C-alpha cells in the first residue's frame, strides 16, 4: 500500500504531505527531512527507487519540485512511478496553471500546499 505522499521543493521544504497510515506529527518532520535528503542527493542516472528503512521510496522530479511516494512491498514500483505522473497531469489539467505566491513563510509549520511559482513544467 501507499504509506505517504509528499511534494517537496528543492530547498527541502515540504509543500504537501499526505499520510495513509498514522505517523505522529514530530516523527513526520524527521521522516520528511530524511526522505528529502535521500532524494535530493541523487543524480539523474540513478534509479527512481530507494530502499528506505522497511519501505521503498519512489520519486520523480518536475523542475524544482520532487514528488515522493513511500510504499511497502505490496506495490508495483513502476505503477506508482507512473501514477505520480498521472497525478501531475490531473493537477495540471484541473488547475490549468498552478499559480500562487511562494508562501514559503506560511508553509513552515503547516500542511498547506503552497504552489510553486513557475507552475508545472511541461514535458
Amino acid at each position, binding site marked *: 500500500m501507499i504509506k505517504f505522499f509528499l511534494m517537496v521543493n528543492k530547498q527541502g521544504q515540504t509543500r504537501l504531505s499526505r499520510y495513509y497510515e498514522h505517523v505522529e506529527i514530530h516523527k513526520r518532520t524527521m521522516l520528511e527531512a530524511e526522505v528529502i535528503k535521500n532524494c535530493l542527493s541523487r543524480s539523474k542516472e540513478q534509479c527512481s527507487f530507494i530502499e528506505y528503512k522497511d519501505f521503498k521510496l519512489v520519486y520523480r522530479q518536475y523542475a524544482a519540485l520532487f514528488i515522493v511516494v513511500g510504499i511497502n512491498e505490496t506495490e*508495483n514500483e*513502476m505503477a506508482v512511478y*507512473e501514477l505520480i505522473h498521472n497525478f501531475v497531469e490531473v493537477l495540471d489539467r484541473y488547475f490549468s496553471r498552478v499559480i500562487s505566491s511562494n508562501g514559503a513563510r506560511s508553509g513552515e509549520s503547516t500542511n498547506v500546499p503552497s504552489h510553486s511559482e513557475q507552475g508545472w513544467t511541461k514535458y
Partner: protein
Amino acid sequence: MPAVSKGDGMRGLAVFISDIRNCKSKEAEIKRINKELANIRSKFKGDKALDGYSKKKYVCKLLFIFLLGHDIDFGHMEAVNLLSSNRYTEKQIGYLFISVLVNSNSELIRLINNAIKNDLASRNPTFMGLALHCIANVGSREMAEAFAGEIPKILVAGDTMDSVKQSAALCLLRLYRTSPDFVPMGDWTSRVVHLLNDQHLGVVTAATSLITTLAQKNPEEFKTSVSLAVSRLSRIVTSASTDLQDYTYYFVPAPWLSVKLLRLLQCYPPPEDAAVRGRLTECLETILNKAQEPPKSKKVQHSNAKNAVLFEAISLIIHHDSEPNLLVRACNQLGQFLQHRETNLRYLALESMCTLASSEFSHEAVKTHIETVINALKTERDVSVRQRAVDLLYAMCDRSNAQQIVAEMLNYLETADYSIREEIVLKVAILAEKYAVDYTWYVDTILNLIRIAGDYVSEEVWYRVIQIVINRDDVQGYAAKTVFEALQAPACHENLVKVGGYILGEFGNLIAGDPRSSPLIQFNLLHSKFHLCSVPTRALLLSTYIKFVNLFPEIKTTIQDVLRSDSQLKNADVELQQRAVEYLRLSTIASTDILATVLEEMPPFPERESSILAKLKKKKGPGTVTDLEEIKKERNSDVNGGAECTPVNASTVALPDSPPQGSLAELVTGPRPRPSRLNSSRLAIHNLQTGVPCLFKGFFTSESTPSPSADLLGLGAAPLTSSAPPPSSTGSLLVDVFSDSASVVAPLAPGSEDNFARFVCKNNGVLFENQLLQIGLKSEFRQNLGRMFIFYGNKTSTQFLNFTPTLICSDELQSSLNLQTKPVDPTVDGGAQVQQVVNIECISDFMEAPILNIQFRYGGTFQNISVKLPITLNKFFQPTEMASQDFFQRWKQLSNPQQEMQNIFKAKHPMDTEITKAKIIGFGSALLEEVDPNPANFVGAGIIHTKTTQIGCLLRLEPNLQAQMYRLTLRTSKETVSQRLCELLSEQF
C-alpha cells in the same frame, strides 16, 4: 474542468488571505490573525443568527488560521451546523473542517455521527460521497465502530451510484486497515466479489483494492474472486487500445487496474479450474507478447505503464512457479531489460530476477545472464542497482559458478561502497562455505576477505572459519600454512592476527617441520604483531602462547620470558595480567602430561546454523534469505560430514590425532605429532577431557573479552538453535575439571507438568519454585509472534554463580518454533532477580514444548533444574467471532475424519460454567454465545497463526454434569493441530 478559484468565491476570505500574505513580519501576521479571531468570535456569539454563507466563510477562515499553525478552540459547533446544510458548498466546508480538526469531544462526535448518518441515508450521491470521504479521512476506530456495519450495505446495494460505490469501497478499505475487528464479514462479501464484473472501471479498481486486502486475511471468503479477476483481466488485455476511453493511459488499457488484478491473483495459488487456468495463461502470454511488439507510442509514459503491467505479470508467474514455459519467457524478458538504457528498468529487472533464480524451472535460465550481471556490478553508476546485482549473483550462485561469483564479489569488494561492504562480506563468506568442494579454496577466500575488507569482517565470519578449520582435519595443515604466510605481510588486519593466532595455537605443529616456519619463527611472527593489537586480541594471543608451550616445549623458556616481562605481568589491563600470571604459573608447575591434556586441541564444534547466516538474516530481515533451508541442509551434509561431536561427548577421546594426509605433505615438509597425552587411566582421561573445554573457556572468557569459543556455541547474537548443553563455567576452573555433572541436562523437575498445564490458558505467573529459585513468566503473543519474559529470582542471601539458563528444543521442534534469546549475567546476587527475554516465532504447528534448563552453583553445590516452558500451539490463536449459521456451515466443511479430534474425559475440577468460559477464552479462541442449540454447551472459533499457514479451528465442549464428564471435539483443517489442541485443552477441565 471547473476552476476552483471561480464560482463560489468568498471575498472576505480572499481579502484575509491576501492580508496575511502581505504581512511583513511574523508579529504582524499574529496581530492580523488575533484581530480576525476576535471578529469571528463576536460574530459567532452575536445575537443575530448568521446565514449559511457567513458561517461557511468564518469557518473557512478558522480553518486557514489553523493550517497556518495556530490553535483553534472554537467554531466547532458552527462547522457541525454546516453539515446539515443542504447547500453543497456549505456542507463541504463543514466536512473539511471536521476532517482536519476532529475533536474527541463526545458531545460533538454524537452530532457529527448523526449528520454523517443522515447524509449516508440521503440517497443524494454528492452528500453520500462527502460523508464517506469524511469517514475515510478521519479513519479513527470510533468512526469504524459507528459506520463499518453500514458501509458494506451501501457498497452492494443495487441502486447505489457508481461514484458512491467507488467511495464506499475505498472507505471500507481504510476502516478495515485501521480496525479490521469492526468490519464484519458476512453475506456482502460474495456480492462485493461480483463488483469485479461491474461496468464502471472506477468501481472495479476500488473493489479490487478492497478485495485484495480482505483476501489476504480471509482467503476462503474471497476465493471466487480468482475466476472473476481472470476474466476481467482477460477482457482488458485483449481490448483495443481505445476501448476503455478514460481508463486508457497513453494507449495502454487500464494499466493500474491490470496491476491490481494481477496482485489480487497473487493472494492465491494457480487456479484449479483448467479453463480459468488456461485463460490466465493466455493473458500472461499476451502481456509478454505485447512487450515484444513495437510500441504504440514513443512517449515514455506508454512504455512505463506497459512495463508496470509486465513486471506485475512476471511477479504472478514467479508466484505461481508452475509454468516452466512462462518462467523461462519471463526470464528472457528480464534479461533484455538488464541491458536497457533506463536505470529504473535495470533495477527492477535485477530485483525480479533475484526471485526467479530460486525457482527450479528458471534457475538455469537466470544463470545464462551471469556475465551481464557481473558487468552491471562493474559499470552501474547507482549503488542501489549494484546492490541488486550483488543480491542476484548471490541468488544465482550454485556449485557450477560459485568460484566465479565469489571471485567477482571479492573483486568488487575492493571498490564497493562502504554502505554495502559488510553485507557483501557476509554473502561471500556464506557462498564460500556453502559451495566449498575444496576447503583450501574456502580458507583462501576468507583470508582474502579479511585482507580486502578486514574492517567489515564481523566476528561471526572469523569465528566461522575457525569452526570449520577445527571441524575438518583435512584443511588444518593448509590453513596453518596459509595464515602463517598471510601474517608475514608487513601490515595485516587485526582480524587476521586473531585467526592466525587461533589457528597456529591449535595447528602450528603441522607446519613446524619446515625450517621456514619453525616454532620460534611462528612465535616471533605472532609476537611482532602483539603490541599493535587491541586488548581482546592480545588476550587471545596469550592463549596461543600457552598452547605453544605445549606444542613446542623447546620454546617454552622464550615464552615464559615473555609472560614474565613487566609489560605482561604488570599490565594495567586486568584480563591480560591475569592471563599472564595464570599461564606462567601453569607452564611452570604442570607436568607435560597435564599440559598436554589441559591444552589439548579444541574438540569439534557441534554443528548448527551458521552464525553468519543468522547475521545476514538479521540485517536483511526475515524472508529475504530465501534458500535458508537448502543452505542448512547442504552445509550439514557437506561441511562437517557427520562430525556431530559435542565438547562433552566421550568420543572426543577417540578423536584422530593423526596429522593430515595427502597433498598436504607436499605443502609442508613434514608435520610434527602433537605431544602425547596421558593415557594411563581411561577414566582420568575421560574426566579431564570433559574438563578441557570448560577450562579453556575459562581462560578465554571474561566480561571484557568474549571468547570466540563461547560465542560459537550459540550464546551470542545467533539464534538459539543449538540443542547442545551450554558451556558450563566461566569462573573457578579446576573444580570443574572433575565435576562430572556439569553440562548434563537434568530430568524435568517434579511438578513441572502440572505447572505447565496451568499456563496453557494464561500467560503470566510463577512457573517454578523451590527453596533457592523462583521462576516467573510474563508473555504476550500476537499472530505468529510472541515474547516471553522469564524472571529468575534468587530466594537466598547467597550469590548464584555460573548461572546459565538454556533453552532446549528437539530437532523437530526447532524447525517449527524459532526461539531467540540472549544470555543472562552469570552471577545472580542474593535476593536479586534477573530477567531474560525470549523472542518467539511460530513457523509451523508443533507438538512438544521447549525445555528450560538452568544450571548454577550455589555455595559449593551444583544445581541443575529443568522445566517445560509453556509455549504451546494455542498461544498463536486469534479469536474469530461468527454467527451460528457460519459456525455450523464451517463445522460441516471440516467433516473429514482426520480433521476431527474428540476426547471424552472425567472432570478434574468442579464444573463451573463461568470458569469454563474463562478457560476457553484464555485458551485463545473466541467464545461463541448462542451458537449451540444446547445452551449448556460451549463453542469456540479461532485461527492459529503460523509463519507458513493459518489454520482455522472450531471447538465444542459438551459437559455432562450428572456423569461429571466432558466431551471435547476439535475440528481444524490440519490433523496435527486438531490433535494437539485437543490434548492441551483436555487437561484444563
